[in-house]
């Protein structure tokens, strides 16, 4: 390789798409490391505490695109206390100080303050893309800063964030000279929106292809927007309530008909069934449909709509679609690749809406299915075995039986065999979430067969330490393991401590791991951060002399080259 000038090596590296490949070539030799680091344009940091921002800036001075993830996945379900960490500011500050030409920033599960957004907006004149997913800590004032200062903004994509509403003025902060928007998603904003400003913005951005509106946008406004932007590819409707007799409704249908490029639909907040026919004209082109925020649209109306969606590849629905509705999906949507069925009753109480029957129907009708998230009231081993046979291409399989620890209702057996069939058949399985009654046996199967598995979520499962050990020993590609309410203790935790350096992180909550076990792990493995999270009001006695044999509520372990973090709150013990 010393015969090749650096430019040639760099050119070769340009063909390496994935981060993994680039990481791999950088370890070959010093020369390659040097070429690679200077030519790297995009960095992905899967855990914000695995490396210091300054280190990233120093190593990759040419980086234009940064992605960072913060809180562990179980934070989505309120298992991580609010002030745990995951702050975006240090990253933005480091990049600003380093004088890097940042153009794209993607953050997931991080705390982003208005101050950070202001700094971001002012520090990078070429900034083009901001994607925030499941973040919090900012308000619409922060968005105003982005709109005001990012002159060449192309994408502003806010997905499921908790955003404080400080009024609608942010949208008006996009200057008249801003014509570069390609993608705007503010569906998660709770407040009012200036309709006129929105319509003008859309009108002056000829390249806009993705537009996801929030609930405050009326159908009238939507109608006008569609008229201005008939080239939209991805649309999130605002509130979809309209008097279906009114003239406005007919205007809406006309404008929808003109949108020949529309491939993806979502939103439908407050949609009533009588408004749905407005979208019938474009259903035949849809590849993506998200009706999971429209509880008023039930069985029969859903079915009418889905019968028209022959090209559907991605479908998100509520379980009020029922097994019957899923059978219609199975017979209509032959191109289906991803299905998510969410519970309409979020408390998990209520009558059974979808069962194993619906899933079996889907599996036999949709052979291309590779990604599943399915909330249901019951599942049988027989059904899972059938699904495994019908759909061997699953890469993501997440099954949530709403009743924790529920067995197969027909045989009263645990669901070990069913999930075993899934991992055995689906050789490309990368992500798996388990539920229902499960013994150590299912983990034996997972360890044996799930060679590609990268992420495993376990809840209320297993009988003994053996279960966890099977997984740690067997799954060579495991990156993330998250466990709650399962009987795995210190013996399992300490069985193979080196394993955790090959993984991104391990989460265990309400298990049998004790403080002693955590301390032992921390002592043996200096390049792991072992965090113990205690939220309860401890008595003073506990504080001073916590018994090492006491079980820890929550433990989060992750590999890092950054050492223990200095922004941990009081209730997080860095061991």
């Amino acid at each position, binding site marked *: 390789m010393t015969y090749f000038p650096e430019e040639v090596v760099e050119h070769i590296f340009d063909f390496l798409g994935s981060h993994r490949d680039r990481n791999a070539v950088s370890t070959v030799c010093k020369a390659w490391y040097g070429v690679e680091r200077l030519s790297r344009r995009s960095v992905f940091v899967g855990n914000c505490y695995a490396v210091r921002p300054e280190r990233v800036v120093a190593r990759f001075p040419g980086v234009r695109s940064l992605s960072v993830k913060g809180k562990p996945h179980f934070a989505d379900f309120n298992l991580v206390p609010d002030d745990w960490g995951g702050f975006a500011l240090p990253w933005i500050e480091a990049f600003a100080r380093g004088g890097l030409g940042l153009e794209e920033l993607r953050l997931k599960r991080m705390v982003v303050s208005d101050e950070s957004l202001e700094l971001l907006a002012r520090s990078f004149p070429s900034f083009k893309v901001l994607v925030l997913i499941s973040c919090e800590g900012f308000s619409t004032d922060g968005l105003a800063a982005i709109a005001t200062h990012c002159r060449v903004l192309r994408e502003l994509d806010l997905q*499921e964030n908790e955003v404080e509403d400080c009024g609608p003025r942010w949208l008006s902060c996009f200057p008249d000279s801003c014509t570069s928007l390609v993608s705007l998603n503010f569906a998660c904003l709770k407040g009012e929106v200036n309709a006129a400003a929105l319509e003008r913005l859309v009108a002056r951005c000829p390249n806009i292809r993705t537009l996801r509106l929030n609930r405050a946008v009326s159908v009238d406004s939507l109608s006008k927007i569609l008229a201005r932007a008939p080239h939209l590819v991805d649309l999130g409707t605002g509130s979809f309530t309209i008097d279906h007799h009114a003239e406005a409704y007919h205007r809406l249908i006309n404008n929808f008909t003109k949108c020949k490029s529309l491939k993806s639909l979502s939103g439908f907040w407050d949609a009533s069934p009588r408004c749905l026919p407005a979208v019938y004209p474009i259903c035949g082109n849809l590849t993506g449909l998200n009706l*999971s*925020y429209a509880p008023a649209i039930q069985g029969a109306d859903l079915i009418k709509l889905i019968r028209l969606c022959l090209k559907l590849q991605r479908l998100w629905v509520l379980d009020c679609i029922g097994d019957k509705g899923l059978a219609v999906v199975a017979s209509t949507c032959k191109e289906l690749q991803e299905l998510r069925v969410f519970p309409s009753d979020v408390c*998990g109480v209520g009558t059974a809406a979808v069962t194993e029957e619906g899933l079996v129907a889907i599996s036999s009708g949709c052979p291309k299915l590779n990604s599943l998230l399915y909330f249901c009231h019951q599942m049988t081993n027989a059904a899972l075995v059938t699904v495994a046979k019908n759909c061997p291409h699953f890469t993501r399989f997440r099954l949530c039986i709403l*009743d924790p620890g529920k067995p197969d*209702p027909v045989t*009263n057996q645990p669901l070990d065999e069913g999930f075993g069939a899934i991992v055995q058949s689906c050789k490309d399985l990368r992500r798996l979430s388990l539920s229902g009654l499960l013994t150590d046996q299912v983990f034996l199967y997972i360890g044996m067969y799930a060679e590609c598995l990268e992420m495993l979520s376990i809840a209320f499962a297993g*009988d003994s330490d*053996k279960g966890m050990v099977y997984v740690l020993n067997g799954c060579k590609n495991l990156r993330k393991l998250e466990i*709650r309410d399962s009987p795995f203790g210190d013996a399992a935790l300490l069985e193979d401590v080196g394993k955790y350096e090959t993984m991104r992180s391990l989460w265990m909550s309400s298990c049998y791991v004790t403080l002693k076990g955590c301390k032992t792990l921390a002592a043996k493995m200096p390049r792991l951060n072992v965090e113990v999270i205690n939220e309860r009001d401890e008595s003073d006695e506990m504080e001073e002399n916590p018994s090492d044999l006491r079980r820890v509520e929550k433990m989060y372990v992750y590999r890092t080259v950054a050492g223990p973090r200095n922004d941990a709150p009081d209730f997080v013990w860095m061991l």
Partner: protein
Amino acid sequence: MEVSVSDFDNLKATELRLGLPGIDAPEKPAPVSPRGSKRALLKANEECWPGTSKSLEADTSNQEAQPMAKAQVIGWPPIRSYRKNSFKARKAEVEAAGLFVKVSMDGAPYLRKIDLKVYKGYKELREALDNMFRCFSTGMEGCNGSEYAITYEDKDGDWMLVGDVPWEMFISSCKRLRIMRRSEATGMPSSP
């Protein structure tokens, strides 16, 4: 490491609950207990085997919990807070907001709007409409009289006579009101 029944009792004593403080003991499915009750479930299952799935469900509901307790397992079912909040918010909105519907009267130059939630029943509603539209009716006994009939449009788009269904059902399905001339309603000429 098999957990025997007596171990289970000891474990229960040392268990760390994730329930919120103040939640009563009897109903909770504390983190360990779903597993424990799982064991009890297995036992119960053995007993009722080869029982029907119906009796199994009955056992399940006894062991696992009354719906109340299910709701108390933190972070279960694993649904993003964003999704949970958006449903909660909508519920709250619907409950907090009034139920404003338009009221039209045949021959009146403009419509009115009333909040159905304000009235306790049909009698109050009729009186309110009577007061509102008195100025438009010429020398009749008001809405209660034989000159007019009060009708409403329901969720399905059909026009119904007010008063047939229970009040609660009415306000949940009423989209708008129309005070109709009797002559139109019955097809018979009104009395002079």
